[in-house]
């Protein structure tokens, strides 16, 4: 990794905790050359129109992701309903053919509240940690979390209402998520209750899917209403400590989205569909520090930008693997 990319990487970690992305102080000569080439190049406009006319928008990654999300969640339900003991438990903690899997944030809450860790808890947490390091950290959010799917649909409704000028997106300070993370950790230590687990929409939804609906779904509904009429994707963006926990895991993950500067027309379609557009600040004209820039840890690897990019400038990448191949 070049010096500039390491600097960007460190900045992206800060951005995950809530800092606003900044214009880069320095850009590599290679990237500068591309930026310069694009500036005032009239041919590019024709090319851009051509690329747009011929772009294939097929929702490939979104469909794969939704299928995975539904499959994973319904596997719990099916496993319990037919008593096949394939995937027992819920998203907070489960056993896949006997192997313990424990959600990192739930495990953290329990460890902080109970202040005692038994072997099974450690094994399950370790397994999940390794799994999500390999798979990209916040991949959990977009590929597994059932609330994410509902929120995606709510977001669609919200965007429609915004277009009709019936509502506006009320943004909120992103640092709030880090504050919530700390508050819930402190509350768990201080009160001895897993306070966050009581309101975790992920846990509530997962249990509702497996063990049947309950009143707790009203809280999830309230969140969705808030997101539809008030603030776009508010829970995932500004509140959810699970997202931040997995985001931290994603810092060292080799699986990520890669941005290639040369083919990009800087039209910003990707930023419009992105849940966390602050990780895509690099696609803004003149911002990329290198010809190829990996996207930061707060990215949920949902692939919406990959689907939407008309030029294929954003792709999935496994660090090191592309070099091997």
């Amino acid at each position, binding site marked *: 990794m070049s010096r500039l990319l390491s600097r960007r990487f460190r900045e992206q970690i800060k951005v995950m905790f809530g800092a606003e992305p900044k214009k880069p102080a320095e850009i590599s000569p290679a990237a500068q050359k591309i930026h310069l080439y694009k500036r005032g190049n009239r041919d590019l406009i024709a090319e851009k129109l051509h690329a747009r006319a011929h772009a294939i928008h097929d929702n490939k990654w979104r469909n794969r992701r939704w299928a995975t999300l539904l499959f994973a969640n319904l596997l719990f339900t099916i496993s319990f309903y037919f008593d096949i003991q394939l995937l027992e438990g819920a998203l907070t903690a*489960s*056993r896949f053919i006997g192997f313990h899997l424990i959600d990192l944030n739930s495990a953290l809450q329990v460890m902080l509240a109970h202040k005692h860790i038994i072997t099974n808890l450690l094994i399950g947490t370790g397994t999940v940690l390794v799994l999500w390091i390999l798979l990209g950290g916040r991949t959990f959010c977009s590929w597994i979390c059932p609330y994410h799917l509902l929120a995606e649909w709510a977001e669609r409704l919200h965007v429609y209402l915004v277009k009709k000028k019936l509502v506006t997106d009320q943004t909120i300070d992103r640092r709030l998520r880090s504050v919530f993370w700390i508050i819930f950790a402190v509350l768990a230590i201080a009160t001895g*209750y897993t306070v966050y*687990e009581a309101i975790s929409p992920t846990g509530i939804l997962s249990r509702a899917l497996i063990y049947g609906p309950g009143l707790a779904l009203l809280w999830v509904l309230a969140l969705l209403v808030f997101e539809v009429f008030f603030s776009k994707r508010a829970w995932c963006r500004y509140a959810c400590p699970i997202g931040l926990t997995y985001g931290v895991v994603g810092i060292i993950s080799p699986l990520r989205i890669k941005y290639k500067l040369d083919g990009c027309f800087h039209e910003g379609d990707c930023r419009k569909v992105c849940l966390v557009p602050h990780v895509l600040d690099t696609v803004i004209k003149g911002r990329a520090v290198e010809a190829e820039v990996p996207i930061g840890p707060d990215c949920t690897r949902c692939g919406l930008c990959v689907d939407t990019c008309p030029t294929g400038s954003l792709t999935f990448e496994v660090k090191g693997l592309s070099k091997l191949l």
Partner: protein
Amino acid sequence: MSDEQNLPEDTVTSEPPAKVGAGGTAPLSKERRQQARRRVLRTILLTGGVMGAALSGFLPLAYAQRQRLRPPGALDEKDFLSSCIKCGQCVQVCPVSAIKLADLVDGFGVGVPYIDARAQACDFSCDAVQCILACPTGSLTYHKPEFLPVRAGAALAAKPILLAKEKDAEPTLNLTERIGVARLTRPETCLAIQGKGFKGQARGPKFQGRMRYMDVDRWKPIKISEHPYDVAECDLCVRECPVKGAISIETVFAPDGSQRKSPVVHEPCVGCGVCEMICPVEPAAIEIVPREVWRT
């Protein structure tokens, strides 16, 4: 609020923006300042909303103090709530579906397992206390960590012997603490005390509760409604108690000096709730007091 979505983060178009974010160095216009102020207010609003919802979990604990019967091997209530990861693996392994997960009204207890003994008690038909084996966090445990105290009277004098496997190499349930104690809370309705017998389905034809009957099938619990009784003197609670020596029918003296029969609970009672479930009178004459300790 015409174009509120055009806040710094989203204003970015194809041109490099003049100012970036609230932390930018350029001085903010009046409109921008107002927008920033509103954003702070919204941030406070969301903080308040989420924290309010989260801390409302204290309410049921502070006011209702609903006593829930927890599954066998449960830590003391406070530790149980802090260590339970709310996954429901205990629910999944129970052969008689005795374990349920609590809903929102339980506050911090949402998603935490409990047993409604009257509807479906734990009859230990799994033999090995599967829920304890399934628990990933040690909320349900055979081995309570040493730093957690044992309440006086909660500890069992000996590991309870499960009648169903009395002849097995390992006849005990391996439990060291009880989850409650059975109490004859309504002696006036008890059929045994009245000297009455019982004939028919213990809880009526519609009752869904299940139990293992060793003389029917050791590994397949059946509905209680499929197993009618015909006893000259009611002793259903004693007859179906899965734990050895936990309850018996004794001759007792009433305050007026008259003699009568009565179910009497003994020290080995673990609080499983089978007596409460099987009791044919409505409401049950005998009930489990959750988290109750043995008092001599």
